[in-house]
């Protein structure tokens, strides 16, 4: 919970990790990729305030104590949602798996929600294991990484018939939050790697599921927003938007927030700090302090209200994950606001 100027904010960090990218965990022969991956993440941290930068060795592998401190002791987070990223092709025990996340979550009851993953390339055996993980860890969401390498495959698409089988299983098991990371190097390489048309396809076909596009489809916010206006069950995960832009590029942050509010609306935006890339504290505090600057180029966008910030920082995610919000931290009269869609000419 974060309190500022007499207002109390219930904070759900919708995107967190507990990873191990230390050299001991690199797969032999894949060191170059394992190293490239974590260094790439580390460079993203450079977009946050200088006093929050970590040395690379701590960034490769951090302790449970540090994570608990950064999120819950000083980071204002009430509940954090683990989003796993396996990457077993490069990391021997995986980069950030459901199992490691769940082990931490079990030690700290109530603090975390554990999401798992599925990968349609894993076939029937994968389906069985998926079902087991969901039951064992009480998963209400999955994180899908369509660009993940597996053998010679450089990724998959939600349009694959196998993916639909898994999504049907999600409906059956009550795994209703489908987080999708849109990242580089999806196969085939000649297609636009950030194409969100496969999300559009499944969002239409699976009306009972919520689709949260992580990193708002950056760098294709326009395609994402266009798609999201047509699907009522598509959400924007703000990881990278707040962490990557609010400090480093405040003007673009304002533009992007303005566009997201304009096309999706306040009920569809989900805060995520993306720890350990960025610590939650400066993001939560900075977002509460932030507002739309007075600038001619931003004149289409109204300022954000306290109630809107409360939704974005936690209440929206709490709704998707059925997280119980203490009475005094709820909004008085929650109402659904439809996105505006198109400016008045």
């Amino acid at each position: 919970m974060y309190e500022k100027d007499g207002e109390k904010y219930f904070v759900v960090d919708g995107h967190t990790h507990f990873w191990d990218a230390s050299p001991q965990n690199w797969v032999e022969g894949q060191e170059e990729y394992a190293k490239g991956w974590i260094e790439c993440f580390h460079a993203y941290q450079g977009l946050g305030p200088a006093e929050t930068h970590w040395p690379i060795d701590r960034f490769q592998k951090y302790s449970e104590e540090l994570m608990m401190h950064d999120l819950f002791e000083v980071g204002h987070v009430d509940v954090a949602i683990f989003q796993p990223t396996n990457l077993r092709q490069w990391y021997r025990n995986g980069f950030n798996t459901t199992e490691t996340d769940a082990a931490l979550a079990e030690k700290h009851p109530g603090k975390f929600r554990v999401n798992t993953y599925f990968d349609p390339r894993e076939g029937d055996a994968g389906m069985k294991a998926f079902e087991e993980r969901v039951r064992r860890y009480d998963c209400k969401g999955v994180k899908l990484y369509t660009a993940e390498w597996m053998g010679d495959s450089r990724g998959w698409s939600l349009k694959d018939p196998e993916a639909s089988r898994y999504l049907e299983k999600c409906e059956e098991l009550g795994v209703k939050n489908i987080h999708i990371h849109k990242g580089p190097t999806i196969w085939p390489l000649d297609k636009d790697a950030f194409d969100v048309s496969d999300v559009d396809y499944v969002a239409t076909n699976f009306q009972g599921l919520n689709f949260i596009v992580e990193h708002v489809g950056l760098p294709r916010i326009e395609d994402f927003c266009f798609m999201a206006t047509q699907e009522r069950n598509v959400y924007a995960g703000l990881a990278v938007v707040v962490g990557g832009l609010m400090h480093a590029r405040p003007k673009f942050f304002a533009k992007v927030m303005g566009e997201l509010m304009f096309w999706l609306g306040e009920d569809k935006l989900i805060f995520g700090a993306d720890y350990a890339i960025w610590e939650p504290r400066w993001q939560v505090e900075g977002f509460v302090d932030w507002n739309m600057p007075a600038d001619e180029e931003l004149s289409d966008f109204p300022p954000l209200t306290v109630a809107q910030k409360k939704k974005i920082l936690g209440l929206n995610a709490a709704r998707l994950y059925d997280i119980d919000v203490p009475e005094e931290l709820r909004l008085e009269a929650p109402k659904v606001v439809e996105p505006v869609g198109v400016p008045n000419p």
Partner: protein
Amino acid sequence: MTAAAQVRARHAAVWRALGTVRDPELDEPLTDLGFVARCAVEGGSALVELRLPTYFCAPNFAFLMVADAHDAVAAVPGVVSAQVRLVDHFAAEAINRGVAARAGFAASFEGEATGELDELRATFVRKAVLAGTDRVCRALLGAGVDRERLPELTLGDVPAGADRDRLRERRRELGLPHGPGDPLIVDPDTGGPPRDVARHLGFARLTRASQEANSGVCRGMLRVRYPHRGEEEGGR
């Protein structure tokens, strides 16, 4: 001209040639983005190294930039041998080999790509037209032009400047009308007037916001990755 002066002039010409090559997503020249890590000219040989903001930047766009840079440098008068190499990238070897062999993208990534990149490039030029439309329209609105009047205006009504030139150039590349008497607002897919102007202008603004945010992230990442950037630029 002395031999040294000739090499200097050729180096400047190679640098100018690299300035015509754009990142297709960001619609900005490689030289402005800091993507040229090295540019060396010796006699008739030019050696150029390109770098990108991350190790995992999309290989399709990387390929386009390396191939375009190769074409631009090879076309500089006096350059008899051009070598353009991508560095610090997971697919550098395949891209460099493919570009050097003039193999095309599909052949360079056999089994991982099914076609060439022309359509991808065209998609991003269409986005550049949208973003460019917002730039000039914002300037017009700022100068007091009524929003309702925008569909009646022509490219010639836009004050002269870099933004107008850039928009006209992108429209020319797509085969869209781009003369001073042509309409200011066209649908980049059809070349005709958009069906819903308000929505069209909304997407133009959104596309520009996306392109600029993307550029901001890329520039920030490059600076983190190469803290001493700038030292090599323009140097030998």
